[in-house]
């Protein structure tokens, strides 16, 4: 009776007859397996495979000799013989059945690796894989990485840095839910764009950190659908608008003139039945929830290119019949598509040499986080947070303490700068340090209006916050966390949940939210983890639907993009004579350039003014100069605390309207007797400075290694009388210097290098 063949031998024999290619792959795996187990005979065998080692005539510059097929077959047979002698039959059976299993999932590796596999096929492959029993084990570790990387590259980004970081946090399974909500031409191979890529990666990084960080436990991402980036090409093709992508090469004036027309053409076009069917499916999934349609272009949200605010994000109320909802959604997508051909993004690309890039626009359709309150829909609070704080109002705040712009309602008011309304500015690393201290300041710089979606009119609207609270205060979730009550000159945090609105006016302060509950730890954890893993400061958008324990992450991108300010080191080659000043404390990142005028209030002269009236007159004169000088083309420099209240000797008494046209506010702290006066950090109108992007810098001229070119300020011709002939006796105190006139076409630049806490103000000659 013949001896029973071991199980593994049966499989091998079967493969030899039915699938020799697979057998070859298994043979190779076996060879590697034995090699790893340090079996010396295998090494010898492998040497035989190296044809160059036996050919004495071989040199590196010619093709290596080919081994014949028979020899290869012999080697493979020998591998299995060695295996049978060195490894137990059970072990071999286990290994070989595992490798065969890996082969079952090979379709995924193949689909992912190939460049032009259509969306439909790859979606099917990923779904099939996810549904396989024991799917995780059906790919070898290296194949798992390979598939992961291939899918990241296929759908998110080909940028190596992006892939490198993302592959650490993603599994193949993470793609199934994304692809099951992805709409696009079935035969296409578009991506999901920058915004989708940023959020996908952030979500996975935070998910990985969840188990070690209690603050992240209730963090989620709103339900999202995607339209792939080639959807726009499909749209252009379907509507015979193929000439659109060349518009970017036209004359900028022409582009600007034509844009409103293009927008209307887009909005009156239609989408292919395939995409409409996809969107219809998405709407069924979303139900009646309001939606936000966000641009997610290929160039957007990549490191180095900021498209902040260049492409549109639109809210859709998503109410009415299915047909109405579908029409509204399509209309919004078409408008976002049109924004690719808008004058501003094209100009932006031209400036950065990105015009020749084949820009495509993917779409992210996200459900709006929030609740229905009356006829409105909005989140209890929302905002943006930055891991690096470029607007510090106290020397105790470090850059890495970050900053939050927080609002009640939709986050649009935090993202945009309103000018006449203010978000709450909070430093998550030092939440106790407030920008505004007195109840009057807090009130003045508090949010007065709230952005909402009106479900009745189906429009995005801005409504008065106080009125909304009066009408719907009882329904507004987490309201006690958001407001304080102003009564009798004081602000009171609500005690418990009982709020008596008749007692006083509700003011948005977030007083309780910031001192109690999980919000600050949540934001800190998100910013810390993301900036650590990504290696650069991040900018996130978030919202809360009213359950203060839960937070939704809406967007994540490199911070350098949000404000468009990159850190630039101070130049080292400026001639000494052209240096106006240097600074080495409390420097934030910014560049202030093309400045024509300097307005300098001489600290010693200001201090020696003999009467109150003259001191007040200085502030008035600054206000008049502010109205006369070209906007954003001058810098105000003065002693101590601009806008000083209480004691005029500490600094020039001005209000925000007296300085609102300046590009920059500089406070000069000259040593007095044995102490250096405190600077204000602009706190008297800090939030106005932030909203108007007026930069702030303190100078300490008497500190070691600091340069302050006093002679320049003293000797430069003073234009004060020419500009304000009616102002008398102020020449000594206020110097108005026109640098461009003084030195042919020269301007003043101030380069502020926040990374190294250094700043330099100098004359830039043409």
């Amino acid at each position, binding site marked *: 009776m013949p001896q029973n063949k071991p199980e593994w031998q049966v499989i091998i024999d079967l493969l030899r007859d039915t699938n020799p290619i697979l057998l070859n792959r298994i043979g190779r795996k076996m060879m590697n397996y034995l090699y790893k187990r340090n079996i010396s005979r295998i090494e010898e065998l492998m040497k035989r495979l190296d044809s160059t080692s036996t050919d004495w005539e071989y040199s590196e510059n010619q093709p290596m000799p080919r081994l014949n097929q028979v020899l290869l077959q012999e080697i493979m047979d020998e591998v299995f013989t060695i295996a049978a002698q060195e490894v137990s039959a059970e072990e071999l059976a286990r290994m070989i059945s595992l490798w065969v299993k890996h082969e079952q999932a090979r379709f995924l590796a193949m689909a992912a690796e190939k460049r032009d596999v259509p969306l439909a096929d790859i979606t099917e492959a990923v779904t099939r894989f996810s549904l396989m029993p024991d799917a995780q084990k059906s790919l070898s570790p290296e194949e798992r990485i390979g598939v992961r990387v291939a899918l990241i590259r296929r759908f998110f980004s080909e940028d190596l840095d992006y892939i490198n970081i993302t592959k650490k946090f993603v599994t193949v399974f993470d793609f199934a839910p994304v692809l099951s909500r992805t709409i696009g031409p079935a035969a296409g191979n578009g991506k999901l764009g920058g915004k989708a890529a940023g959020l996908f990666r952030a979500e996975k990084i935070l998910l990985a950190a969840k188990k070690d960080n209690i603050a992240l436990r209730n963090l989620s991402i709103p339900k999202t659908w995607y339209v792939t980036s080639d959807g726009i090409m499909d749209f252009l093709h379907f509507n015979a608008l193929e000439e659109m992508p060349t518009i970017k090469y036209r004359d900028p004036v022409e582009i600007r003139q034509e844009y409103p027309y293009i927008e209307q053409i887009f909005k009156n076009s239609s989408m292919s039945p395939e995409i409409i069917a996809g969107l219809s499916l998405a709407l069924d999934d979303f139900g009646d929830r309001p939606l936000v349609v966000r641009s997610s272009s290929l160039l957007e949200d990549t490191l180095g290119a900021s498209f902040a605010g260049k492409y549109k994000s639109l809210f859709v109320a998503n109410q009415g019949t299915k047909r109405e909802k579908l029409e509204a959604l399509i209309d919004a997508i078409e408008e976002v598509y049109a924004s690719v051909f808008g004058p501003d993004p094209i100009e932006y690309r031209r400036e950065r040499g990105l015009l020749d890039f084949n820009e495509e626009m993917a779409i992210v359709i996200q459900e709006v986080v929030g609740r229905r309150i009356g006829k409105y829909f909005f989140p209890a609070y929302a905002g943006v947070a930055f891991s690096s704080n470029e607007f510090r*109002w*106290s*020397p*105790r705040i470090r850059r890495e303490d970050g900053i939050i712009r927080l609002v009640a309602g939709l986050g649009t008011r935090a993202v945009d700068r309103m000018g*006449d309304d203010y978000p709450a500015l909070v430093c998550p690393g*030092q939440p*106790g*340090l*407030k*920008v505004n*201290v*007195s*109840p009057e300041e807090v*009130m*003045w710089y508090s949010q*007065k209006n709230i952005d909402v979606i009106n479900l009745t009119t189906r429009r995005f609207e801005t409504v008065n916050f106080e009125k909304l609270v009066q009408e719907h205060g009882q329904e507004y979730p987490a309201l006690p966390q958001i407001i304080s009550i*102003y*009564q*009798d*000159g*004081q602000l*009171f945090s609500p005690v418990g949940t009982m709020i008596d609105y008749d007692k006083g*006016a509700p003011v948005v302060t977030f007083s309780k939210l910031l001192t109690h509950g999980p919000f600050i730890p949540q934001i800190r954890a998100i910013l810390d983890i993301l900036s650590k893993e990504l290696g650069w400061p991040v900018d996130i958008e978030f919202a809360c639907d009213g359950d203060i324990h839960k937070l939704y992450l809406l967007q994540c991108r490199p911070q350098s993009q949000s404000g468009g300010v990159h850190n630039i080191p101070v130049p080292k080659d400026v001639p000494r004579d052209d240096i106006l000043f240097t600074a080495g404390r409390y420097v934030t990142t910014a560049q202030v350039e093309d400045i024509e005028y300097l307005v300098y209030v001489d600290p*010693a002269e200001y*201090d*020696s*003014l*003999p*009467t*109150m*009236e*003259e*001191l*007040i007159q200085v502030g008035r004169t600054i206000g008049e100069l502010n109205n006369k000088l070209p906007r954003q083309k001058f810098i105000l420099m003065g002693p101590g*605390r601009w806008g000083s*209240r*209480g*004691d*005029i*000797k*500490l600094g020039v008494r001005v209000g*925000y*309207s007296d300085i*609102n046209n300046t590009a920059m506010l500089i406070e000069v702290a000259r040593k*007095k007797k044995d*102490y250096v*006066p*405190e600077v*204000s*950090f602009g*706190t008297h109108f800090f939030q106005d400075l932030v909203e108007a992007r007026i930069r702030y810098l303190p100078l300490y001229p008497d500190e070691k290694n600091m340069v302050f070119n006093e002679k320049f300020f003293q000797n430069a011709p003073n234009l004060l009388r020419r500009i304000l002939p009616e102002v008398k006796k102020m020449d000594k105190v206020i110097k108005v210097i026109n640098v461009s006139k003084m030195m042919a076409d020269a301007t003043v630049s101030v380069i502020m290098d926040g990374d190294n806490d250094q700043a330099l103000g100098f004359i830039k000659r043409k």
Partner: protein
Amino acid sequence: MADKSFNAFEMAQKQFDGVAEKLGLDQATRDLLRNPMREYHFNIPVRMDDGTVKVFRGFRVQHNDARGPGKGGIRFHPQETIDTVRALATWMTWKCSVVDIPLGGGKGGVICDPHHLSEREQEGICRGWVRQIAYNIGPFQDVPAPDVMTNGQHMIWMMDEYERIHNGRYPGVITGKPLGVGGSLGRTEATGYGCVYVMREALREMGIDIKKTKAAFQGFGNVSQYAVKLYKEYGGNPICVSCWDQADQKSYTFLKKTGIDIDELLKITDRFGGINKEKAQSAGYEVLDGNAWIEQEVEILVPGALENQVTKDTAPKMAKSVKLIVEGANGPTTPEADEVIKQRGIFMIPDFLANAGGVTCSYFEQVQCNMNYFWTKDEVLSKLDTKMTDAFLKVSALARDKKVYMRDAAYMIAIQKVAEACKLRGWV
């Protein structure tokens, strides 16, 4: 150069010297009143949020308490303002004296910037301040109040610390507290109403029927809003107010010659006294430049919001009809403008008399706290009327008798009363 430069305390002393000369005060009295009686300077160690300890400098200046316990604010401020604090303490003595409330003058503070401190740290400073001076302040010694960068919350922390140390309830140790923890009703109305009480008395003395007058108000904050309200109730015709427009970053004057309807205007006014231009226009108001209030054909001008409004440039623009100026704000008139006013024979009720309604109400808060019995708003306001009327009559009588400008008369009466109290006590 330094000796010439502006110094608030030197200015207060110079002003005092001038009045002392007119009053013929003896040298000892002058020496006593020229400088504060006492000054306390002390350290306040505070445990910061990061675990370190930071030492803050605190102080209290008690200028004079011959007429009663000291009264004056506590400010959080940067380093170099001690002379300003001395000046303010001196002015508090005169201000309490002119309205004849039995209080002296004080001022204090801590060198710190609350923008750089958390609330917990600020609480530490407040409590630390009281610990260092708990036996030198009190309902019958010296009564602090809110000032620059401090508010009711700081006052409550201070009161609470004081009560812990003295083991009892002493709400009268501090004023400016919220209602329910020792605050007084009527505080919001006090300054505006006070202005109109003295205005009413001035008109009566001048033989002018208030019902036949028109008035222009600068500002539309707490002071002007309540002043307009009461003036109208008395039958006067307020024709304009001015206010700051946040969106335009400039001020406007809102004029309605037939008379302002205060309730109508308040409906279109935000919390900061900003009036909605468009709505005002459709309600029949002319919207003019922010300085136009001073040029109106009225009998009465009430500069009620900002300092330095009546200047050598704007004073000549006052209409011929103007007979009375009531200084609702602090320091709205410059010395050059005072000369114009004197020449034109316009009657002037100076700021520290006209706007003393606020400090009088603080005094009422203290009195109510000491009794632990709180009055109704009407009671507070009627007592305020009595006090203000009485004070005005005394100042104007002196101005008439001695033929001096009202501002000078007010100072003379104030300083005279303090000097007398010192004399009676046998201090000088």
